[in-house]
C-alpha cells in the first residue's frame, strides 16, 4: 500500500533529524503521538504538534513518559498508528511499557534520541549508551527491533521503516537516534506519496466464531482487531493463551514467550540490514552505527590511504543483530574495530559472534561528543599489526 498523500510534504527540505523523524511518522500514516518534553528529542513532538491539527492527527503532551508510552498503546487498540519520542531518562521510564507492547503485540514506534548518560547525564550532547537497554531494558524475554539512522534523511526513511516493521511483526520498534543525528541539519528528500511503501495493519478477516486474538498466522504473527469491532477482546500483560486469557502455567509461558522471541529470531534474515563498504578481502572491519558510522569514515579513509585493508560494516538494524555475517567475517579477517559512544555495548555482540576467532577492539567514548577520527584510526592501525 502507498502513503496517504495528505500530509506528505513532497520535495527537498533543509531540516534536522528530529524534524525529519516527525515527517517520516506522518508519511508512515502515524496519526497519534503522545510525548513528554525531553532534550534532545523535543523538536520531534514540536513539529508533530504544529503539523497534526490540519492533517487529522491527535497529539497529546502527557504528564510524563510513562503515560506517553502507554497512551500510544491505547491508541493502537483504538485503531491508530502511534508513536512516542524521548531520550535517555524518559527511555528508562518507558521500559515497562516496551515490555507491555512486546507482550501484548502492539505495533508502535518508540524513538530514543540518545544523549550522554547515565541519569540526567549530558542532556544536550550525544551518546550511544542506550543500545543494550533497547535490547534488554524491559524485564523478561522478548524479541525487539531497533534501527540506527545516521542522517536526517535516514531519520525520515527509517521512521517509515520502523512503522512498517512494527506492523509486519506486531512488535514495538525502537528508532535509536542520537543527539548529533537529531540536531544535524541536512538535505532531506521527501518522495511523492505514491512512492512511499506502507505496510498496512493486518486485520483479522476470518469467521468471527473462529477468532482468537493471539492465534498466530504461519509467520508467527497474529492479525489484529480494534476495540469496538464487536469481538469482546481481552488484552492482558499477564501470560495468556491464544484467546488472550491469563494462564499461569509453565506451558502457557513457554508457548507465548517462545513465540514472542521466535517471530523476530526466525524472521531475522528478513529484518537484519547493514551496509558494507570494501569488506571483501579486508584485514580489519570497522563495525559502527548511528553518527559514529560517519565519524569512522575519515579514519578508515586515512588507513586505506596508508595501504591498510579496512572494511566498514554499518548497522542499519542493530536488533536483531547481524550475527550470521559477523560469524562469517570472523573466519576471514584479522580483527574487528567497534567505535561507539559508550564504554562497550554493541562490541559485546561482535565479540560473542566472532567467538574468539579474531581480535575485537572497542573504541569507547563516554559521551558528550563524537570520537576524534584519530582515535579510531589509531586502533585500526594497531589491530592491523595483529
Amino acid at each position: 500500500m502507498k502513503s496517504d498523500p495528505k500530509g506528505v510534504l513532497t520535495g527537498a527540505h533543509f531540516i534536522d533529524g528530529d524534524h525529519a523523524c516527525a515527517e517520516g511518522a506522518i508519511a508512515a500514516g502515524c496519526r497519534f503521538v503522545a510525548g513528554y518534553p525531553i532534550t534532545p528529542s523535543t523538536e520531534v513532538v514540536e513539529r508533530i504538534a504544529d503539523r497534526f491539527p490540519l492533517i487529522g492527527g491527535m497529539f497529546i503532551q502527557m504528564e510524563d513518559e510513562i503515560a506517553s508510552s502507554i497512551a500510544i498503546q491505547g491508541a493502537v487498540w483504538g485503531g491508530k498508528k502511534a508513536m512516542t519520542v524521548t531520550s535517555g531518562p524518559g527511555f528508562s521510564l518507558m521500559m515497562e511499557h516496551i515490555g507491555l507492547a512486546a507482550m501484548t503485540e502492539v505495533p508502535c514506534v518508540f524513538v530514543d534520541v540518545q544523549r550522554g548518560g547515565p541519569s540526567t547525564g549530558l542532556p544536550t550532547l550525544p551518546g550511544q549508551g542506550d543500545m543494550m537497554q533497547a535490547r534488554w531494558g524491559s524485564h523478561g524475554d522478548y524479541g525487539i527491533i531497533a534501527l540506527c539512522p545516521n542522517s536526517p534523511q535516514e531519520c525520515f526513511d527509517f521512521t517509515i521503516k520502523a512503522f512498517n516493521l512494527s506492523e509486519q511483526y506486531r512488535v514495538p520498534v525502537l528508532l535509536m537516534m542520537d543527539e548529533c543525528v537529531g540536531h544535524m541539519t541536512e538535505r532531506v528528500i521527501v518522495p511523492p506519496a505514491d512512492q512511499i511503501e506502507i505496510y498496512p495493519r493486518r486485520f483479522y478477516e476470518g469467521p468471527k466464531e473462529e477468532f482468537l486474538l493471539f492465534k498466530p498466522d504461519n509467520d508467527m504473527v497474529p492479525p489484529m482487531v480494534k476495540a469496538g469491532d464487536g469481538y469482546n477482546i481481552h488484552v492482558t500483560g499477564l501470560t495468556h493463551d491464544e484467546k488472550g486469557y491469563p494462564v499461569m502455567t509453565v506451558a502457557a509461558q513457554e508457548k507465548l514467550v517462545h513465540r514472542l522471541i521466535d517471530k523476530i529470531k526466525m524472521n531475522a534474515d528478513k529484518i537484519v540490514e547493514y551496509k558494507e563498504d570494501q569488506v571483501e578481502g579486508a584485514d580489519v572491519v570497522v563495525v559502527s552505527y548511528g553518527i559514529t558510522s560517519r565519524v569512522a569514515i575519515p579514519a578508515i579513509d586515512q588507513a586505506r590511504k596508508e595501504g591498510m585493508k579496512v572494511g566498514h560494516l554499518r548497522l542499519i538494524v542493530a536488533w536483531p543483530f547481524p550475527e550470521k555475517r559477523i560469524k562469517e567475517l570472523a573466519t576471514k579477517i584479522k580483527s574487528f574495530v567497534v567505535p561507539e559512544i559508550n564504554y562497550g555495548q554493541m562490541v559485546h555482540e561482535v565479540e560473542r559472534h566472532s567467538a574468539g576467532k579474531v581480535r575485537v577492539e572497542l573504541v569507547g567514548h563516554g559521551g558528550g561528543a563524537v570520537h576524534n577520527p584519530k582515535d579510531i584510526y589509531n586502533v585500526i592501525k594497531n589491530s592491523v599489526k595483529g
Partner: protein
Amino acid sequence: MSDELLDVDESMPTNTVEEFLRMERMPHIWCPGCGIGTTVNCFAHALETSGLDLRKVSVVSGIGCTGRVAGYLKLDSFHTTHGRAIPFATGLKLANPELKVVVYSGDGDLTAIGGNHFIHAARRNVDMTVILINNFIYGMTGGQVAPTTPLTATASTTPHGNFEEAFNLPYLAESCGAVYVARWTAYHVRHVTKAIKEALAKKGFSFVEILAPCPTLYSRRNKLGDGLDQMVYYKENSEVKNDIDTKTVSLSFQGKITVGKFVDKERPTYLDAMNEYYGKKFGDKYTPYKG
C-alpha cells in the same frame, strides 16, 4: 463435588448479569466477603439500562484485585500495567472517540502509583468514567498500607498502625476538575448502580468511589470481623449528603462515611475544547477531529 451439584435446573431464571460476564472464566479470584464482585454486579446492571451499544464500551483496568475486573467483563477489556489504566484509556478514547471508555481499578492503583495520571486526566477532562474500588489496602500483594488507609489502621507495612493522612478522593477529583463525583459503599447497591449509570451518561471525567470490604487483609488485620460485619458498618455509619462540599468528606478509621453525589457539572471535554479552539484558530482549514 458430586455431579448433582453441577446440574443446572433449566427452569431457574438466568442471572441477568451473566451476559455481561465471561462466564467461562468463573470462578473469579476474589475472596469470600470481598466487595468487588458486588460492584461488578452493579456495573452490569448500570450497563443493562444505560442504552449504550456494548460493542462500543471498553473497560480498562490496572493491576490489583480490582484490576482483575477487566478480565471478567464480556466487553473489549484491557488489563494494563500497575497505575496506568488512565493513560491507556486516554489513548484509546482519543484514538476512537466513538468508544465509551471505563476505567475500573483500585485505590492503590489509581491514586498511589497512578495518582499523577488521575489528576491530569481530570484536569484535561478526558471523556471517561473512572470507577475506583476503595478497600483501604493493597489486597493483591498481601495488605500493605495505601494512600487511602485510614489513620491508625493496621496494615502489613504499618504493623504498629498508620500515621499518614489518607487521601480524600472526592475532594481530589473535584479539585482537579472532574465533572461528576460520587461516593457510595458496596452496601448501597442501588445507589452504586444509579451513580455508575449517571457517570456513564456524563460527558467528561466522571468519578465514582465505592468503598468495599477486604475481609481477608484489611478487616482481619484490624479485627473488624468478616465481609458482612463491614457491610453492617457501612449501613450504620453512612450518611447521605448530596452536593456537600467535598472538603468535608474525609474518611476516618471506622468513623462516619459521607456518601452521595457531590459534583455534577458541565465543562468542555479535552476533545471538545481542542476542536473548538482549533476551529476558531484555523477556520475552514480545520476539520474537527473525530478519530
